[in-house]
């Protein structure tokens, strides 16, 4: 009392005068954000299975989506996904519930925008997603049957004239003979080689070489084993 407190206070501020400042120099230096920091809500359209967990768990009706029943697969097809971000309270309930982790928060915290409409984020179904899907459903079947025919033809050719066909992928005469011998004894190997030759020549060459090597080693083994047996006798 009697002024000591005043002087002590002055002492404290004086001490702080020379201490390091704690100001964060944003935006020159961006703040260090914790990994769990919730900035802006992000949505990955392609991963979403339109299960609706996020929409149901959101307390503030931020999220909504439109779906369509796909006639072929009877699956729900996501058409658009809307995040009305101005009502979001960053509670993370949506992201926690999502089974596919396709709705999540990133670290972008600079969310201001000039227009109110800009706050709303609408994700439309990407066009290439539809294309890919078509490929993978209708297109796929056609392609598959076409390929199968080719493979069958190849297999026949292999059985008829192995030397000529195999010379496309193997270089040495000796190897070709070994492989054709192998194919005659095992139809599976023939099938595999035929399939690979249709789809991917390079891979076929590799696999063929692998088969040949294996066969060579096996032979060498049986020979050495035979020799060893002799010695033992």
């Amino acid at each position: 009392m009697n002024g000591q407190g005043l002087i002590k206070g002055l002492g404290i501020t004086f001490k702080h005068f020379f201490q390091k400042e704690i100001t964060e120099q944003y935006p020159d230096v961006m703040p260090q954000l914790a990994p769990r920091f919730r900035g802006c809500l992000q949505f990955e359209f392609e991963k979403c299975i339109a299960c609706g967990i996020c929409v149901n768990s959101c307390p503030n009706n931020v999220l909504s989506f439109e779906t369509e029943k796909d006639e072929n697969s009877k699956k729900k097809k996501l058409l658009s996904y809307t995040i009305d971000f101005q009502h979001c309270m960053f509670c993370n309930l949506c992201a926690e519930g999502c089974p596919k982790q396709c709705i999540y928060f990133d670290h972008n915290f600079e969310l201001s925008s000039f227009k109110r409409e800009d706050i709303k984020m609408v994700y439309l179904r990407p066009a290439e997603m539809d294309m890919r899907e078509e490929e993978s459903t209708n297109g796929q079947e056609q392609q598959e049957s076409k390929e199968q025919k080719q493979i069958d033809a190849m297999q026949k050719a292999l059985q008829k004239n192995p030397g000529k066909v195999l010379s496309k992928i193997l270089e040495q005469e000796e190897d070709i003979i070994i492989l054709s011998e192998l194919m005659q004894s095992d139809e599976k190997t023939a099938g595999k080689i035929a399939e690979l030759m249709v789809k991917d020549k390079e891979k076929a060459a590799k696999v063929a070489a692998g088969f040949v090597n294996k066969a060579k080693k096996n032979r060498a083994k049986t020979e050495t084993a035979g020799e060893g047996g002799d010695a033992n006798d």
Partner: protein
Amino acid sequence: MQTDIYRVNVGPIHPSTHGGLHAEAVMDGEIIQDVIVHLGYVHRSVEKIAESRTYQQFVPYTARLDYLATNLPVLGYCQTVEKLLGIEVPERAEYIRVIMAELSRIASHQIAIAATGIDLGATTGLMYGMRDRERIMNIFEMTGGQRLLSSYIRIGGVAADIPDDFIPAVRSFVNDVPQMIDEYNGLMTGNEIWAARMQGVGILNPEDAVKYGVTGPNLRASGIAYDIRKAEPYGIYDRLDFDIPTGSRGDSLDRWTVRIEEVRQSGRIIGQALDNLPEGEIIARVPKTLKPDPGKDIYHRIESAKGELGYYIVSDGGNKPYRLHVRAPSFINLMVLPLVCRGGVFQDIITNIATLDPILGESDR
């Protein structure tokens, strides 16, 4: 001398009314004749919102009641629902909850300290209080993902396990608590001007405090050692060792010092919880839709930073509460403002609002 009685509106837009309090002061010169408290400027009909949200969906709204001590109202709500449904919370979650709750209490008190500083004109006090609170905010960001409304406590436990750097960060904070308190005391409490502005200002005697239903640090400053953490322990508070700081005069200075002491005690509690933190689950298995028995009701209360925070929930068997009521400590504590202000000078209104430490988000709901 004959003087006119005049009225001054302190708030709702005023630098020192802590976010939308409107205190109408009836003044005779510089002497306060009466203060009329008008509330409702931050009314968001939280209780009504609860009726249209599922039990889980309402959790984030509770954080907005006392946004300065964000985890405490959430904890209170979650515990009420757990009690309603008989959910057992895993041990580890209980400990983490205690740590987060006490950190929230410290954060709230540090805001009270900082705000009292600025309200009384000690601007530097504001900065020091805010600076120290910043570390708690960083801890919240680390665990819950957000700084102010971290949305971390959930029905049945907590949202995620603590990250690796959590324990060192909390430890270093707790170790620095005494040093921070020394600084606040040196800069403000020990200052003669400060003491003169607070001593004997806004005296709330224990009888009045009880009559009005005042709780929390304001009640303890009046000399009544009543703390729900001790009187009716919830969670794991019965296993923790801490003191209840009390005042003797019930004036503003007592309310101020009680808060500072509570920061120290909360630091102690956090230290113990960290020492005994067990391994294990962090959240109980809670069904996706919560449907309590119809007609069941429950009241549960916790000691929040501002006082007794209670939730009363009535269930009609659906997945939403039929009725939810919040007993907001700030609302009830604010009711003594006229009582403590009467007869003081104008500046005492500011001091009293600051030391009663109301939070309008909670009192207006």
